[in-house]
């Protein structure tokens, strides 16, 4: 399998390590519930089809990436730096905070 690292270009999947589905979001903060944390840590959709997943380019630039990949065919769509996506995600609550 070849993964197009947005920084390093296309590399063999052996250069990366895999974490899993990028959909679950960690329930941050002291208010988070144990139930929400359980779901985040343990439950997965495990879809047959296109999913967004976290890969770490450990043998390359050490970037965490969000890879859109079809689990039936391994076909890869978009590959984006996880940090950029995470920042965009963080902006949403921050945006509402800007009213404060």
């Amino acid at each position, binding site marked *: *399998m*070849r993964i197009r690292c947005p920084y390093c270009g*296309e590399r*063999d999947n052996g250069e990366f*390590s895999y*974490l899993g589905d990028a959909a679950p979001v*960690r329930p*941050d*903060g*002291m208010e*988070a*519930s*144990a139930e929400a*944390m*359980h779901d*985040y*840590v343990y439950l997965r959709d495990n879809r047959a089809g296109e999913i967004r997943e*976290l890969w*770490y380019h*450990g043998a390359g630039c*050490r*970037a*965490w990436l969000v890879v859109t990949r079809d689990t039936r065919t*391994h*076909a*890869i769509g978009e590959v984006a*730096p*996880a*940090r950029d996506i*995470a*920042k965009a995600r*963080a902006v949403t609550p*921050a945006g509402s905070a800007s009213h404060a």
Partner: protein
Amino acid sequence: MLDRTPDFPSPVREVGPSQKFRTATGGLIDRRRARDFTFDGRTLTGYHGDTLASALLVNGVRLVGRSFKYHRPRGILSAGSEEPNALVELRSGSRREPNTRATMAELYEGLEATSQNRWPSLSMDALSVNALLSPIFAAGFYYKTFMWPASLWEKLYEPMIRRAAGLGRAADAPDPDTYEHAHAHCDVLVIGGGPAGLSAALTAGRSGARVILVDEDFCLGGRLLAERREIDGVSGPEWVEQAVAELKNLPEVRLLSRTTLFGVYDHGAYGAVERVSDHVAVPAPHAPRQRLWRIVAKRAVLAAGAIERPHVFGGNDRPGVMLAGAVRTYLNRYGVLPGEAPAVFTSSDDGWRTVADIAAAGGRVAAVVDSRLDVPVPLRRMAEAAGAQVVAGGQVIGTRGHLALSGIDVRDSYGSTLRIACDTLAMANGWNPVVHLDSHLSRRPVWDEAIHGFVPGQLPTGMVAAGAASGRLTLSDALESGARLGAEAAESCDFRATATATPRTDPESTAHTPLWRVAKPKGKAFVDFQNDVAASDVELAHREGFRAVELLKRYTTLGMATDQGKTSNLAGLSIMAELTGQKIPAVGTTVFRPPFTPVAIGAFAGHHRGKEFRATRHVPSHAWCLENNAQFLETGLWLRPAYFPRAGETDWLQTVVREVETVRGKVGLCDVSTFGKIDIQGRDALAFIERVCANPFGTLKVGRSRYALLLREDGFVLDDGTVSRLADSHFVMTASTANAARVMQHLEFCRQWLWPALDVQMVSVSEQWAQYAVAGPRARDVLRRIVDPGFDLSNEAFPFLGAAEITVGGGIPARLFRISFSGELAYEIAVPAGYGDAAWRAILQAGLPYGICPYGAEALSVMRIEKGHAAGAEINGQTTARDLALGGMLAKKKDYVGRLMKERPALTDPDRPILVGFRPVDPSQRLRAGAHFLAVGAEPSLAADEGTMTSVAYSPSLKHWIGLGLIRRGHERHGERVRAYDPVRGGDVEVEIGAAAFVDPAGERMHG
């Protein structure tokens, strides 16, 4: 056309003996270079350019091996990698290669081949008695028997079956040759060097695209080398020579012959193996035996050709029965005549080419049996001119002879049986495109009614099929489709390519009416030769319900031999289709798995064997350790000094005791560079550390270090280490040797994904710093002689858990931490790794007056056990902070990784085992890690299991063995006695529970 790579030096000898069946002229062998070889100890001669198979045939050797199950005599069926029968042991001793296809083995001087799966000899094989028992040994026979009594399976039946099974014998010693890997990238990968592949490579290559052409043969040209064909007025081999010459002149074209493209993987990745040295007796100096290529290609043109189908009739496995295309290959390419009285059994026009070629070589043909009633008149005339008896609408139903073919029984169109004497039978029953590679990515081939065979269906992205591999079986189609698809492939990589006009070829016919099996055969009609699967076995599978193609395959073993059913799968399907009244494609197709042909395991491993299996990491003091007889141990990839024996010390324990006593009494030096070191900077560095560590850091001042406990999000302990604050927003975190990489990945995950808004810059500095523990009551005295003047080492100025950036050796930057794993007054000093060797020697020299000694990982471990510190055996991924008696340090007022999940009921159950210390009640007894705890007097059982001993050591301080372990409610049970039960080592020791810290529990020494 012969390979022009330098042949391994061997004498040029004009003529060998015998070679009885060699044509007078012609062929692509080099008649000036004779090659002696042995088969079953008998010396024979062939020529350079022969394969082992052609050299055997030319010497009249028909019987080459014995079949897998019935030990039937077998000869040579094909002239290529599809060969199911002619498997031999090639070479001997540590280089012995079992199951080597004689059809693919290039002849070299001194080649040694031995037949296999026979005893005592090939012609007198005792187990050929199995053939007589074949009525019993039908498919699936094993599942119905050998059950009475059950105990005899392992003792009698199975060893018997195993001895009889298998084919060749593996080498009897480690492989002495080497293998290597190489990577290649290209725009267009062309798989197969026949007419289609060469045409594709030419058009793509001329465009300037980067092209790689791979072919499993040692000569490029494919069937052009095997047939008498003309292209634009020149012979096939001449056309190939011109094409190859042009390709060699194109700078971006790489030709890899002797290279099998064995696997297609995701996203344009391909695996290929190049047999660099298999055509010589021993690899040349510095040359690998084989090279495994990992090829990445934007586009691929699959031009792997087609494989001819055998007929299914009685005794079709008799040595002398061959594929017609193979007969022509041996004749035209190798100059080998097909015996003295060849016959042809065909269901297609191209089978008649065999007759024409034999006639052209001056040979006589005994008979032509065509299963079709309507035979074109010119073909019939041509055959009759060659002396052949022609039987149209006939079928070969059986064969005669024992170890080799002596005649055939033919049923003619009137139902009468004719006996025809012949010593070779060439079978032509149409061709199957090589669809193996395109099915590696789970694509299924589709049925093509025109060729009565499977052709590629939806191909993997970027791949197209050309020529025979696509079902276009004529030469002109191969040339046309190859050139066109090569050009298209280059175009799609942004090169300008043009397909040149298709060359003219002589006319050919692909007319073919497949004969799936002969009705009422005489004797066993084999479908899968190598696995001895006959048509009757397919019938039995049908009868017993094994009708789905995968069930058929698994029940009968059809297609599971070393040839992976290249000549048999379709025949099996066609019989099942007939039995179930379905069309062939409705029965299904088997999924071809990689590799295309078997690949040496050594080639996959390449460089990574023996000591090079994995990299070895050396500590900065490694050179000194080598000079001073250090003994090493493995921790992950690291080779760490374990202990440093001195003259007169006779066992490791004696050495370790001396090292510990020296540290506890004087001072010692230990290389702890293997710990991970992570530099963390940024405005939010502290906030980041708070979130990844479970204990609080808010009060950590600049110039101080603190123990750091990291949890996984599921609440179990991930690792522990220290965090030191070097400046307001500059920290360095350590991680354990074993977990360093995992911790770094985890921290990057937290930084990039969980909390991307934090201003944190992080980089590993593990390799920059050599870090040494200087421990013992005299540690400060030693360091005073190392640290540059001006730094105050006094307890007041630099107390326990101090951290400082200092200089040593007159201005070399260094770091000093007052942390202690041993429980003694101790420092860890870090110097740039290049100075690591110097610092090690300098510290030892500075410590001489104080009696310093180096100590290794073993002594370090003893001292940490004496101090009750948890390490890898306790932090094993199954323990919580509370289990390790570290619950008290968990922060309560911050969120951190693992905070919530560690509170799950089972993880806070007070009955969980907790870390405590153990000492033997009888101090002379030895403890062992891995023992389980039982109440005194309890019967061993899972229910009675109270926990396990995790680490043990002989304590030089206490003069007896001590242990750390986790036992239920251990912290409440100090003073209680339990058994440490270790049945796998015969141990059963009564131990007393106590505090985990055995030495200086108050920690006065390290604070001093």
